[in-house]
């Protein structure tokens, strides 16, 4: 093997990792500001949460060409790089933001009263209470955010926008190049190295952080997660993370000058006024970014796109896409329900399989797309099947882990009751496991379907070095991909808005209701 290849691969991983780390740090900072603001202020909550909800539902790749235009206008060279980081950011940020929001929301009332009592200023509250209290949720969301970012890495390192193709050096673009040039060994090596680095990232940074964050939880019975064999193996290597995080005093050195502090005290006095001011500046500031003329141009683009699309075509596309996503979700349910029960009942099997599943789950499935494309072209299998596999690869793991988590909180008394009554097999499934799994199953469906929509842009149509591979039937993702590659912004915007609208409606009308029913019946 040529050592230069290895160096190139490692360098590419370094570049991609750098983008992802920058995006992740930005995600955390954004989440802390926005999540805390929404949780603390009722006025801001009413604005921020619906906006986050919509942003979360907009397909990530629908953002991209628009962001690309904006950032390239800023600076032609760095712009592409910033746009790529921005795309990764949009794939990592929302779950962390909602996590911070929830964490601050559930701070016990008595603790809030104590901080009021001690007359902590808002800045002291953020520093001593809100940020530490969000730490467990932030840490818990890091692995999935990282996996999400990786999933879209390929898509953001190579982008065709009309005539122009932008290619950023990184592991995503490099692997695609290897595969396209039929360099089997190099491709395999690149994929293996990515897998290795993902596992190291989890073992050396994310898992130790989740462990450390246990102290930051309010439940005093804080469950102790036993160290798995592979964790013990790498424990010495996690020392840096432990040292950094083991000093809760790091925040003490975060001194703020008195003048700034006074400013915050004044701001706190006029809290209400400032909230309203913020609320009213969001809209003008947004329109200033786009500028008024652009805004009109922008809405004209959307309207034109809508007129061109009409009603029947988008609905047909959405119908087909919904069919794909729901089929994938059913397949996922069909295997994860028995699998999660099997893992729950057989601890030895779980010990072996769970780390393997976790490793596969964090692996960017998009790197495998070229293989799937080759497979369907070579064997003549329907492309719909290929699309289904791509959707499955990107979305199936969340359900498994969430169902497994639901099973592990079954009270011991219930288990013992079923043992005493000697109920097992299908009866136990129907009377104990399924009811206990339902709330997680519904949240799992929401996340899976949401993730499914996001993967559609890749799953329904992929361009690999001049080979265009697309599903036989219509699809909204296919349309978005076509619009992107011919550089038709009107069409892209209109399809993105159609898709986002449909997802928001689906969330409001179907999933949220199901969830509320499930919660009321079971919990």
């Amino acid at each position, binding site marked *: 093997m040529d050592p230069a290849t290895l160096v190139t691969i490692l360098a590419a991983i370094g570049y991609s990792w750098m983008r992802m780390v920058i995006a992740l740090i930005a995600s955390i900072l954004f989440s802390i500001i926005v999540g805390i603001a929404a949780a603390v202020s009722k006025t801001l909550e009413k604005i921020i949460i619906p906006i986050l909800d919509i942003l979360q539902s907009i397909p990530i790749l629908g953002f991209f060409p628009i962001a690309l235009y904006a950032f390239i206008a800023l600076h032609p060279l760095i712009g592409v790089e910033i746009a790529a980081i921005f795309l990764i950011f949009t794939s990592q940020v929302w779950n962390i933001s909602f996590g911070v929001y929830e964490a601050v929301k559930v701070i*016990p009332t008595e603790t809030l009263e104590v901080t009021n009592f001690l007359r902590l200023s808002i800045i002291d509250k953020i520093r*001593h209470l809100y940020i530490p209290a969000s730490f467990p949720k932030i840490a818990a969301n890091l692995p999935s955010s990282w996996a999400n970012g990786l999933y879209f890495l390929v898509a953001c390192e190579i982008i065709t926008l009309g005539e122009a193709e932008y290619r950023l050096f990184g592991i995503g673009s490099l692997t695609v190049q290897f595969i396209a040039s039929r360099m089997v060994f190099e491709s395999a090596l690149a994929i293996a190295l990515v897998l290795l680095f993902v596992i190291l990232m989890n073992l050396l940074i994310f898992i130790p952080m989740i462990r450390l964050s246990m102290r930051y939880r309010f439940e*005093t019975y804080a469950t102790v997660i036993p160290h798995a064999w592979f964790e013990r193996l790498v424990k010495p290597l996690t020392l840096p993370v432990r040292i950094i995080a083991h000093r809760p005093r790091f925040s003490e050195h975060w001194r703020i000058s008195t003048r700034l502090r006074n400013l915050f005290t004044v701001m706190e006095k006029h809290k209400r006024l400032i909230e309203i001011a913020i609320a009213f500046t969001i809209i003008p500031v947004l329109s200033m970014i786009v500028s008024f003329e652009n805004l009109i141009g922008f809405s004209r683009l959307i309207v034109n796109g809508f007129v061109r699309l009409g009603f029947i075509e988008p609905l047909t596309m959405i119908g087909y896409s919904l069919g794909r996503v729901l089929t994938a979700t059913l397949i996922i349910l069909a295997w994860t329900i028995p699998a999660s029960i099997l893992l729950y009942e057989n601890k030895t099997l779980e010990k072996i399989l769970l780390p393997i599943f976790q490793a596969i789950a964090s692996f960017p499935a998009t790197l495998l797309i070229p293989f799937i494309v080759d497979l369907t072209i070579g064997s003549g299998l329907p492309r719909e099947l290929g699309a289904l596999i791509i959707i499955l690869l990107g979305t199936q793991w969340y359900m498994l882990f969430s169902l497994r988590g639901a099973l592990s909180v079954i009270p011991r008394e219930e288990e013992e009751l079923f043992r005493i009554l000697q109920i097992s097999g299908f009866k136990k499934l129907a009377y104990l496991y399924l009811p206990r799994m339902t709330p997680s199953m519904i949240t799992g469906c929401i996340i899976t379907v949401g993730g499914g929509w996001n993967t559609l842009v890749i799953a329904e149509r992929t361009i690999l070095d001049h080979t265009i591979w697309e599903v036989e039937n219509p699809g909204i993702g296919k349309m978005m991909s076509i619009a992107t590659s011919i550089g038709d912004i009107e069409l892209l915007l209109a399809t993105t808005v159609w898709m986002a609208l449909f997802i928001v409606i689906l969330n409001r009308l179907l999933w949220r209701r199901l969830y509320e029913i499930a919660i009321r019946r079971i919990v």
Partner: protein
Amino acid sequence: MTMEKPAETLISLRNISFSYKMRKGDRLQVFDNISLDVLYAEFIGIAGPSGCGKSTLLRIMSGLLKPDSGEVYFRGRPLNGPDPRISMVFQNPTLLPWYTVIKNVMLGLINEKGLSEKEKEERARTFLDMMGLIGFENAYPAELSGGMRQRVAIARALVSHPDLLLMDEPFSNLDQLTAITLRRELESLWLNQVLPISSIVLVSHDIEELVEISDKVIVLTARPSRVAGTVKIDLKRPRSRRSQEFYEYVDKIYTLLS
């Protein structure tokens, strides 16, 4: 007979009315025109049927809640919001799990601009010592028992040298043995004037506890609550729970309650 000099009032609640907003715009009237005084150097117990607003009363006294109408005077001045000279201990120890014991206590001094970090640490240590927690300064709350956590919370309440200590059922979540020990210790610290505080207001549903420790027990009625009566406990300390007079006081309070 000695002339009783009218003692000065530390905190005074005048004609307090308070209601909670419920869903659908209903209001739950908790207090309707209630008045009471806490004098300097007085240990007040507050008893009342459950849900009568004992905890709400404490929160009004602390400035955490604003009454709908009526005035709260603290040291002769109207009270608007939390005051550094009033401290509170809650039913649950409510410590910040991410800080060590000493850091949690030092939070009680966070607004003392005149003190250096070192002085704050010194003072926190003094109170940890008083509460029998020396050696645990660098432990985290999760590593302590419930009783020890409540001790930390009391140390945090005392560290700022308040005049008034409000306690909202501080012993009710502890096991009985721990509760008795902690109450006895607190009582003896207070009687020996080791504590920097002048007066204590203790809310409890345990009548015997109140009779054992208070100078005066204020009994509240059910919602909207009024003062059903005030029972002055004229028993020598330490009080024995087995004596005849002790039971007479307990009975008297139960009669007022029912």
